[in-house]
């Protein structure tokens, strides 16, 4: 579903998914993840990663089937996708402003930080999704290099003696895996973004699945580091354990004292990509559904994202709202899949 002829290559889509969701993996996910799976981190991570990769791979293969549809149900799904993306982007902006206030700008209020992030993301969104795809090719490489750098010293400096297979219960693990997969919450994003998929449709399973799995590796690294250093109980109490972890790692010959600022570069990049991409895609979805593909001013989408970002009163409430958004995302996935199946049956009949 694209209103402009802006096609992204498979590599760009992978880079975009990685750039967008890696920040969420480091900030939002560890707290939620540890609270769901407790001590049983490693198994849930492995199974969750594979499940999420397969799940979103299959979902994308289905979504790409309806990228050129234009009926009423499709338009309703577009609206739902836009609402979901705006809410998700708004909450991410809130979480980002909290982290920035905690680790970088304690004297500047959260609303101001959120405003600057949304404003910059809006300015950057003017180039369209194709330009965002190009940018992600560079940001993804920089982020991976940064992660490898951190991971090398993390592995070198810490001894991973703790076991993460404690308290293994099959049913509980199965439920955790499913929950974690839903935490990814990228169905609406895929629904709109795959309209720009310029490669052979059959390859989108591999494209999306690989990207999701790579993103999961970031989560794995963040979680293992946090649980190893703080222990799973302590890590479950910290909202941003993965960010705080960096202070406990010894970089040889380091000239930087507060090392969590380094990971802030990673987080800012990812959230910047997320907000600007979601502004573009939400605007496109609204444009397709309401304005027949004509231009829709993305400033309204940006304003919506900002307004949502200032709604929560505190971080706990924000995480609570994110749980609600996840359910909305799950509902969207079900509706979208049902719609795709209906279209498939309709096409087979004709």
């Amino acid at each position, binding site marked *: 579903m694209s209103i402009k002829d802006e096609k992204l*290559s*498979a590599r760009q889509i992978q880079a975009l998914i990685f750039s967008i969701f890696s920040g969420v993996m480091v900030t939002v996910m560890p707290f939620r993840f540890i609270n769901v799976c407790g001590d049983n981190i490693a198994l849930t991570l492995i199974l969750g990663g594979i499940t999420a990769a397969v799940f979103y791979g299959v979902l994308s293969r289905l979504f790409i089937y309806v990228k050129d549809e234009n009926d009423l149900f499709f338009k309703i799904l577009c609206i739902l996708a836009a609402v979901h993306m705006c809410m998700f982007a708004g909450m991410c902006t809130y979480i980002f402003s909290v982290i920035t206030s905690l680790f970088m700008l304690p004297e500047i209020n959260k609303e101001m930080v959120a405003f600057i992030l949304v404003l910059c993301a809006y300015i950057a969104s003017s180039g369209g999704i*194709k330009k965002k795809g*190009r940018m992600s*090719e560079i940001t993804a490489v920089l982020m991976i290099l940064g992660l490898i750098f951190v991971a090398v010293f993390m592995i070198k400096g810490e001894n991973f003696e703790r076991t993460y297979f404690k308290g293994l219960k099959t049913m509980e693990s199965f439920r955790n895996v499913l929950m974690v997969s839903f935490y990814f919450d990228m169905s609406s994003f895929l629904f709109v973004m795959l309209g720009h998929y*310029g490669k052979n449709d059959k390859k989108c399973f591999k494209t999306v699945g690989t990207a999701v799995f790579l993103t999961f590796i970031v989560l794995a690294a963040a979680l293992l580091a946090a649980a190893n250093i703080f222990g799973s109980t302590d890590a479950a109490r910290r909202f941003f354990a993965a960010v705080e972890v960096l202070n406990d790692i010894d970089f040889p010959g380091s*000239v930087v004292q507060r090392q969590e600022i380094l990971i802030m570069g990673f987080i800012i990049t990812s959230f910047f990509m997320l907000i600007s991409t979601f502004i573009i895609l939400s605007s496109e979805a609204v444009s397709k559904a309401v304005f027949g593909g004509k231009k829709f001013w993305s400033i309204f989408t940006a304003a919506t994202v900002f307004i949502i970002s200032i709604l929560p009163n505190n971080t706990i409430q924000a995480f609570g709202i994110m749980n609600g958004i996840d359910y909305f995302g799950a509902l969207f996935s079900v509706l979208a899949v049902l719609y795709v199946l209906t279209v498939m049956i309709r096409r087979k009949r004709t």
Partner: protein
Amino acid sequence: MVKTVIGDDMDITNSLDKNIKYIKDTFKGADDIIFREFKSGNKNCFMVYTDNIVSSDTIENAVLTNIMIRSTQNYNINSMNEDAVSVGETKKVYTFEEVFDAVLLGDTAIFTDSDNSALVISTKNWPSRGVPKAENEAVFQGPNDAFTEQGSTNTVLVRRRIRDTALKVKRMHCGKRSKTDVAVLYLKDVAKDELVQKVITQLENIDIDAVFDCGYVQQLIEKNIVSPFPQLQMTERPDKAASAVLEGRVVILVDNSPFAIMVPAGLNMFFQASEDYYERWEIMSLLRILRFIAAFISYSLPGLYIALTVFEPNMIPAQLALKIAEGRANVPFPTLVEVLIMELAFELLREACIRLPSSAGSALGIVGGIIIGQAAVEAGIVGPAVVIIAATAGICSFAIPNTGIVASFRLIKYFVIAASAFFGMFGFFMAQLLILSHLSMLESYGMPYLFPFCSAEAGGYSDLKDSLIRVPLIFMKKRPAFAKQETDGGKREEK
């Protein structure tokens, strides 16, 4: 074709007297235009040319001598062209517009009685200073010749390096009044047709009185005029221009300008120097990486200094932070003002050194350096750390081999400084992302500006071989993704 302003489209008449009157009226007051009336046998003839830009030898020996002395025939324009004029390039024209264009370009026009046409003879002999030495893009190893102000010489300098019949030179005029000669050079079987056509169309659409330098052309055919980043590359080196032609790029040579424009241009190309290919790949790859680091430092360091010292002093090791604080103890200004003072001083010094003669320029550089560096610190105007920061950023900017892109980095440095001054490291990171976002939006004639770093859509990942590192020449077998791919065996695949 640009319309003439001096003359109009009036046709040459059969009456020589009318023609002479019209020409003299048009050139009235232009004392450097020479009119000469003479006879060929019994027939009246008239010659017009511009003084000092024609070859007197050619006019006297190859034209006048043959017509007036060696022959007693009554020549008309056709027979004169076939029998008398012993010059290689001649042209029969029918309008005054063509005559005026030719005369002002250094050619000579001859009219005869009862002929409604004129013979234009190539007699150009413009003053030139010879082939100079490259100064802005000097190399240790490799040719050192540079383009000159004479367009025809510049074309020769490129053609000398590419003796291929596929090298095409399309000539045209730009500037309604200046009618400056512009040559478009490309390899027919390598440069993409749409790229060549796009460049030619853009040049034809230029609507300006005069083009005195290729800087005019560059600004007029760039797509994004608001961006501080140049989307076309300039060079003074013929070897670089020839290399660009071989890569499938289009080179524009503008008369009166000792620079060539290369289209398209991406960020990576501004970091490539001719020398990179003349010396071994290992050391040149290291230098390439250094240039990229230098570019980043040149526009980021002052902003980073402000962000760290003002907002995140606890990120700096304690001893260093104390040293910086100690140095700033007597400085009355905030860090932002301190940095701006130094940056401004550095910019002024740079500008003054360029304007002054080279001997005085270097003296000013030393004196300015001492005054700004030492005296300013002693007077307590700035801290020593800021001097080091400004100097390091300045030195790094000189390591980049293209002045166009250096100017962009000089400009965006102030944006990074402002963002860092307001929001510390957060502002610093946001500024970097906005710059990256802007760069990813830019295109140069259809090529992404960040090519080959983001070239999944163009299938140009193999062009990374000539980016941050330069692989050995034997591995560089494919032409860049923006060239025609049929010539190097097989198409690229999108990744």
